[in-house]
């Protein structure tokens, strides 16, 4: 299911193009470009490729401002996923993608097919997926709907990933009211590829064959386009037009191995997965990227159901399919490998030099569109941003994790991956909130000694036609660009999900940032628990404030705006921590995020089973802040480090703010600031932390598969 706008303009009036979500203006433009009215097949194809999801009508202009180049970039935006070089002939491919709307409709399959989709984007580059991360947002933990959604989504992600043998190594989950009806399910996949075996999506070479392989094509996800169904199908046949796609990880597992072998034997010119808008977008985009034309004969497509119409075949979103361009002399070898892997395959067309996308049915033309009109012809809209004078979001819970480390023996090093995004803070201040999400990723990487190589992102926002949302989107992208530029971390890919709104209102604007970094030694990651007697330091230009904080949320008084911070000194702190971790100078490192210093200390205490005594008066003195700010305030740029006192002290006096704040001891977390004092038994803190799991536990049995 593609993530099109659930709210269409003028859908009240009966007219195929409107029902398909095209505006009158867009329809006129299509007629003008074609010099005639499109027929049903063509209209279906236009409607999907000119949808927000495929055409990026409201975001493409903004995305042009992201930094995308760097010495390590192997593939950037425009490809199925981004990729960065990690040396020794290997690259890491990665991308994050949303499956929000499908997960709201059917959480298990929605999340499962979301994972399937992001895996295929990475597989399409020629990479073998090695890890998954997810970034999830739900409503409050105590509601029946949240239980239902969490249960389905978590099982769906697990089912697909497990069945492929790909571990979920990290992620984050937040529970906040604006996501109650519109949950966010963003999945990130990281894959490993031999750089010289990687393949691009661009079609090339007139006369080369187009091979479709993988699952059979059925009526999955045809949804909106079913208005084009022929008259014979009456209402009662609705069941014949399923829109919920079913994920089949077994098929995907075969596809993965098949693609790996096809590329190892150098049999492909290009490769592309079939995602939203199925054959239409994959074939169209391959031709567009290569500046070629393409002929597809729907009569040659292996079908799951016999009587499918050409438009259905062209827009079907059946999962687990790939499209390849193959030189004629290699076609037999390609088909043989597909047979070996027990996956259906067929030559369904040819690359041409006509610049035209021609649809045939058993040799007879049934549709003909200029590739450029289809893929690049959609008008791109300027946003009409306006900073809202007042905003309201219903207002609460978070758990977060630092970076995951993956050993890559092939390249003789390790990589680290992290994913972050705090929608509440972005709601308070879209620019600063997005800068913080990006910095937090880099900070998480630093705690395992990793340096950023590249960034991916998923922009989850409401309806961009609304000035307030447009403003949020614009400011968030500016923040992402600014932070990535400062970190010298190019954005190599991503995804945009707009129209995340329900009658209850929009979601929090939620840019999710994913980052991949490299580290020299996976045994030095400062992820070890702290030990009794360790000194504790707070390091970095951390200037805590309650604005947008967890505490403020608990009090139900969310403020507008976040304090601005310079990025450069934060970057220096990140570098210092990274180097300290790499040399083994610190045992334990974590960044200060949700819930401030007290929460960071409590998390370290819970994971080690040992408490601490910390005094935050030096923070109050340096920042001239209130005790409460020092204890619970949030903001970027702070790290808690623990280890040998003499080693830690060496980190002072290096141009980065540094204070020793206490030591590891006892069975209580004690933090004092001015007159204020927090004391909690480690066991109590743990019980509170673990109780969340019970609160979100589903009442359902988790039966369906």
């Amino acid at each position, binding site marked *: 299911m593609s993530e099109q706008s659930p709210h269409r303009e003028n859908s009240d009036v009966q007219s195929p193009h409107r029902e398909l979500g095209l505006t009158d203006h867009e329809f006129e433009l299509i007629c003008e470009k074609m010099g005639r009215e499109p027929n049903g097949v063509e209209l279906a194809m236009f409607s999907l490729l000119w949808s927000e999801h495929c055409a990026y009508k409201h975001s493409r202009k903004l995305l042009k401002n992201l930094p995308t180049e760097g010495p390590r970039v192997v593939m950037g935006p425009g490809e199925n996923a981004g990729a960065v070089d990690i040396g020794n002939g290997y690259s890491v491919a990665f991308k994050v993608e949303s499956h929000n709307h499908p997960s709201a409709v059917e959480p298990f399959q929605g999340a499962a097919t979301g994972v399937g989709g992001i895996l295929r984007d990475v597989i399409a580059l020629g990479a073998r997926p090695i890890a998954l991360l997810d970034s999830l947002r739900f409503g409050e933990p105590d509601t029946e709907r949240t239980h239902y959604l969490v249960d389905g989504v978590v099982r769906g992600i*697990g*089912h697909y990933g*497990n*069945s*492929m*043998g*790909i*571990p979920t190594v990290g992620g984050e989950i937040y529970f906040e009211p604006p996501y109650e009806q519109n949950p966010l399910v963003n999945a990130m996949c990281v894959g490993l590829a031999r750089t010289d075996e990687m393949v691009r999506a661009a079609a090339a070479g007139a006369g080369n064959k187009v091979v479709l392989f993988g699952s059979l094509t059925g009526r999955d996800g045809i949804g909106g386009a079913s208005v084009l169904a022929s008259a014979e199908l009456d209402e009662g046949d609705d069941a014949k037009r399923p829109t919920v796609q079913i994920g*089949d*990880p*077994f*098929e995907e*597992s*075969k596809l993965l*191995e098949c693609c790996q072998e096809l590329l190892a034997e150098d049999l492909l010119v290009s490769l592309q997965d079939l995602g939203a808008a199925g054959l239409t977008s994959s074939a169209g985009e391959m031709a567009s990227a290569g500046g070629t034309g393409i002929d597809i004969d729907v009569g040659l497509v292996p079908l799951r159901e016999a009587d499918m119409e050409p438009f259905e075949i062209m827009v079907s979103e059946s999962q687990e399919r790939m499209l390849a361009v193959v030189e004629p002399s290699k076609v037999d070898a390609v088909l043989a490998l597909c047979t070996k*892997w*027990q996956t259906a395959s067929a030559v369904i067309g040819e690359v041409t030099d006509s610049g035209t996308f021609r649809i045939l049915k058993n040799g007879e033309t049934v549709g003909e569109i200029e590739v450029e009109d289809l893929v690049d012809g959609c008008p791109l809209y300027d946003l009409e941003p306006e900073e809202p004078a007042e905003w309201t979001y219903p207002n609460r819970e978070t758990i977060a994790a630092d970076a995951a480390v993956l*050993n890559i023996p092939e390249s003789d090093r390790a990589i680290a991956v992290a994913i972050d995004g705090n929608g509440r803070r972005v709601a308070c201040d879209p620019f600063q909130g997005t800068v913080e999400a990006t910095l937090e990723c880099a900070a998480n990487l630093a705690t395992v000694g990793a340096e950023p190589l590249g960034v991916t992102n998923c922009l989850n926002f409401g309806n961009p036609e609304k000035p307030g949302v447009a403003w949020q989107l614009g400011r968030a992208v500016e923040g992402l660009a600014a932070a990535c530029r400062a970190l010298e971390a190019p954005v190599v890919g991503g995804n945009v999900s707009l129209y995340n709104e329900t009658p209850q209102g929009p979601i929090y604007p939620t840019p999710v940032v994913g980052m991949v970094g490299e580290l020299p030694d*996976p*045994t030095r990651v400062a992820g070890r628990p702290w030990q009794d007697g360790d000194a504790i330091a707070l390091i970095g230009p951390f200037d805590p404030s309650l604005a947008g904080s967890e505490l403020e949320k608990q009090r139900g008084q969310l403020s507008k705006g976040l304090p601005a911070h310079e990025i450069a000194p934060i970057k220096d702190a990140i570098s210092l921590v990274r180097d300290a971790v790499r040399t083994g100078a610190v045992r334990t490192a974590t960044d200060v995020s949700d819930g401030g210093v007290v929460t960071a200390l409590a998390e370290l205490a819970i994971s080690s089973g040992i408490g601490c005594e910390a005094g935050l008066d030096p923070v109050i003195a340096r920042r001239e802040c209130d005790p409460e700010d020092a204890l619970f305030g949030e903001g970027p740029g702070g790290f808690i480090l623990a280890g040998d006192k003499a080693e830690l002290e060496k980190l002072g006096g290096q141009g980065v703010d540094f204070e020793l704040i206490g030591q590891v001891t006892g069975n209580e977390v004690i933090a004092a600031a001015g007159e204020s004092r927090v004391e909690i038994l480690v066991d109590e803190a743990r019980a509170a932390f673990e109780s969340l799991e019970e609160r979100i536990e589903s009442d359902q*049995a*988790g039966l369906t598969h």
Partner: protein
Amino acid sequence: MKWGVLQFPGSCDERDALNACQLAGGGGPGQARLVWHEETDLSGLDGIVVPGGFSYGDYLRAGAIARFSPAMTAVAEFAANGGPVLGICNGFQVLCESGLLPGALLTNERTRFICRQGDLIVGESDSPFLAGLEAGSTISIPFKHQSGRFFAPPELLEQIESRGQVAFRYAPGQNPNGSLNDIAGVTNEAGNVLGLMPHPEHAVEAFSGSTDGLAIFQGPALAGAAS
């Protein structure tokens, strides 16, 4: 010792198994190769691993379809001739389905997929795979499965126990799936076929936190040298 690691459509731990076999032999790619599920010639191989994963998607029943593959017919013959065969997770399920090992594996008691590091107690089985392990000792390796509840009807269970076919038990309190008698792994009567649910192949390198799994792969060579 040269290993063959079976590969079915849907297998996913075959690479780690290959790596474990190679490390067990002291390193080097010559010590193990993949065996495609349609192959029937196992000559030149001294041991077989049926790896974990989701052969045929685990559809119908885990292991039900894979056991019909041509390679499994060859493996049955290999086992009948005394060759060492190790089934891990899905491989264990395949070996039970094909009758090379007694019992069956059912959906975990709590129906959920589990994934965590856990402890196993080594049993008394007379199996080449246990040659490097002391009975009663503990090893720590990952548990990772959704259908790992070992079951055998009472008489069969009694037989398995009395003939010393229990190779591994989950450590007290760690039974993750409701297996009868805490059984995590069993051998055939002769001892040359071993199946277990947990994953020794994921615990062979220091980086992963435990290298306890390596001994199982080293066992057959040790046993061979001793005999």
